[in-house]
């Protein structure tokens, strides 16, 4: 309903398509051809797919053969975690899976599922109060029985950036594979697969201005993943299924723009974020800002704040009514707002976590968004506190 006048501050959830992505996709929609078909129409589609692959690889510091296209970030995370475990648990006796307690559910849930259904020994490493993984604890846990270590490059809820090369090194010392979900990092921070030391890395198009429905798992060629999706043998037999050629083209186009503008965007978003912080603290001097305060240690566009005395139910309804789209924690299937597991992992109580909001900026964000929030917040907070008073 009425997208025109809304203040969109939920870019970490998804972000508008960039024009170049729309053009690249539209150019494909009128064509026909399955990239697996051997005839001319198929080869034409295949060519677009491979050119997209080469472009994605180059932009991310990877080789084309290292790019496995998927339907998005969740599928890529599942393939990384389950694929690594499947390849190493029985053949190599490596049944341990190590993740952080603040991972996105697309990593956490497959890991936990392996724990409950496939005999994996899953360890969730704790984080410090601003979300940084404890590297000493990690070194102690990652051993020669560890199949894979998976740690988010940058946290989607609080923005904390992890020291990925150090983590990869810890993993390799023990012969474990290192995976990182870099979905939020790409386009906002410098991300180079080769330089990172990672064996596996997840990226997705729709966080960058590309379409929903396409992403990639970057995997070093000597990493033999057990497939999750079997079928026609596409993507080097690792991920079967007909891929969205138009989507891949859109992905590549959006990625090109995101990488090219990354440095400038980082500065621009950081400045807008500072404006959001000012607006929030003006309306709620007792607000608690989560994540590292050093801009080098966090995403430039994510701001997670706790508003004491307010409840998510009230904040959501009131901000919504004020035309502001932002995140009030994750929602379960029924739609009930639930406190963020990331905030709980930082040591916040359920009540505190239940009073948190995440604002996230993106390529269409502007000062007008910051101003709109500044105008709306005071009344939103007054009513939210009153609501918090009656719910107890």
């Amino acid at each position, binding site marked *: 309903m009425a997208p025109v006048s809304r203040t969109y501050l939920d870019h970490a959830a998804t972000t508008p398509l960039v024009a170049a992505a729309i053009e690249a996709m539209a150019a494909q929609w009128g064509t026909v051809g399955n990239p697996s078909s051997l005839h001319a129409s198929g080869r034409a589609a295949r060519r677009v797919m491979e050119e997209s692959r080469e472009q994605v690889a180059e932009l991310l510091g990877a080789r084309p053969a290292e790019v496995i296209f998927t339907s998005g970030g969740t599928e890529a995370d599942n393939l990384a975690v389950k694929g690594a475990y499947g390849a190493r648990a029985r053949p190599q006796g490596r049944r341990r899976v190590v993740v952080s307690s603040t991972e996105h559910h697309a990593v956490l849930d497959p890991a936990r599922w392996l724990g409950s259904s496939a005999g994996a020994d899953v360890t969730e490493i704790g984080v410090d109060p601003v979300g940084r993984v404890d590297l000493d604890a990690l070194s102690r846990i990652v051993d020669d029985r560890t199949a894979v270590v998976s740690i988010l490059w940058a946290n989607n809820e609080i923005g904390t950036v992890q020291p990925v090369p150090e983590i990869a090194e810890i993993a390799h010392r023990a012969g474990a594979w290192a995976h990182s979900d870099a979905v939020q990092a790409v386009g906002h921070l410098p991300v180079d697969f080769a330089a990172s030391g990672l064996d596996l890395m997840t990226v997705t198009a729709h966080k960058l201005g590309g379409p929903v429905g396409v992403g990639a798992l970057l995997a070093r060629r000597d990493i033999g993943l057990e497939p999750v999706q079997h079928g026609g043998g596409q993507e080097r037999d690792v991920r079967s299924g007909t891929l969205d050629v138009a989507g891949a083209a859109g992905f590549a186009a959006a990625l090109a723009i995101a990488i090219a503008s990354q440095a400038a965007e980082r500065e621009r978003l950081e400045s807008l974020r500072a404006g959001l912080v000012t607006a929030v603290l003006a309306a709620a001097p007792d607000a608690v800002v989560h994540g590292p305060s050093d801009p080098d240690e966090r995403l430039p566009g994510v701001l997670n704040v706790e508003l004491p005395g307010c409840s998510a139910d009230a904040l959501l309804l009131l901000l919504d009514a004020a035309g502001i789209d932002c995140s009030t924690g994750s929602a379960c299937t029924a739609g009930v707002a639930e406190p963020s597991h990331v905030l709980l992992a930082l040591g916040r109580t359920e009540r505190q976590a239940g009073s948190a909001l995440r604002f996230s900026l993106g390529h269409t964000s502007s000062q007008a968004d910051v101003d709109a929030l500044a105008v709306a917040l005071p009344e939103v907070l007054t009513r939210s506190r009153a*609501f918090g008073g009656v719910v107890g």
Partner: protein
Amino acid sequence: MRVLAAMSGGVDSAVAAARAVEAGHDVTGVHLALSKNPQSYRTGARGCCSKEDAHDARRAADVLGIPFYVWDLSDEFAADVVDDFVAEYAAGRTPNPCLRCNEKIKFAAVLQRGITLGFDAVCTGHYARLTSGPEGIEMHRAADTDKDQSYVLGVLTQDQLAHALFPLGDSLKSEVRAEAERRGLAVADKPDSHDICFIADGDTAGFLDRRLGSRPGPIADTDGTTIGQHDGTHHYTVGQRKGLRIGTPAADGRPRYVLDISPVTNTVTVGPREALLVREISGIRPTWTDRPVVGPWRGQVQVRAHGEPVTAEIAYAGDRVVARLDEPIAGVAAGQALVSYRGSQVVGSATISETVS
């Protein structure tokens, strides 16, 4: 007005919300997640508030073009409705949880939340009529006498009614379903939920067994002679005839009925139908739709959700309402509501505490 429409996922609350929108109100839909462990899909017609119900409510809100949220009130519901339900049975009474839900959740917890958020009223799909009378807001029975829910709303006060909206009060259920269909609400065909919403399989005895355990005790006749054994007084309600596991038939061969349930002695007393008849009913903790009516005055009382109203002389003194019935009635259970009416108008409600034959 800014209206908060409670949407259960059923056809009544969907049409009620639709009418509020059509009346020009600024409506927001909210689904109340009341269950501590909701099932994904609704199993048949019983129970409520599965994830499927939340989905149905969401889709109705989409059709109406209104904002929609899901609020988790399962803690409040567990404490105020479910625990109260169990405690009442443990105390030998027969509670009506829908009444408690209206009193404590829908027109209290939800209403309070709504008011802090700037809403003027809570709208539901209840069948009851509100009118403006010379003294204030009046609540009357609904046009559809089969669906009339004034009995379970009788516990609401003037202040609560001032913030309530019941758009279905003048309609028949059949009209409401037809309207849902016309409006393109997919729930037009959805069967009504009945029985108790938090006992999805309809097995109240089983639910109470799990909460209260088995507490065997004697079944006695009016002389006090033990004539059988029960597994828990919570399996019985006054007026019940079936399910009395008594080995021997009565001396006169006629059916026996539960006359009394005493949690103190853990005894269920049974006897002939005549012993069930009561002429006087007392109710405690009265609530009044408008102001307390001391009386004595003549009106009608209703003692169970779809029971026949009976004429009585009603008086209020001390902390209790006493109704002296013109004609005796059978099967009046403590814990149910004694709702008094002046014609179609609700006067007040009280919790039945005692009866006199």
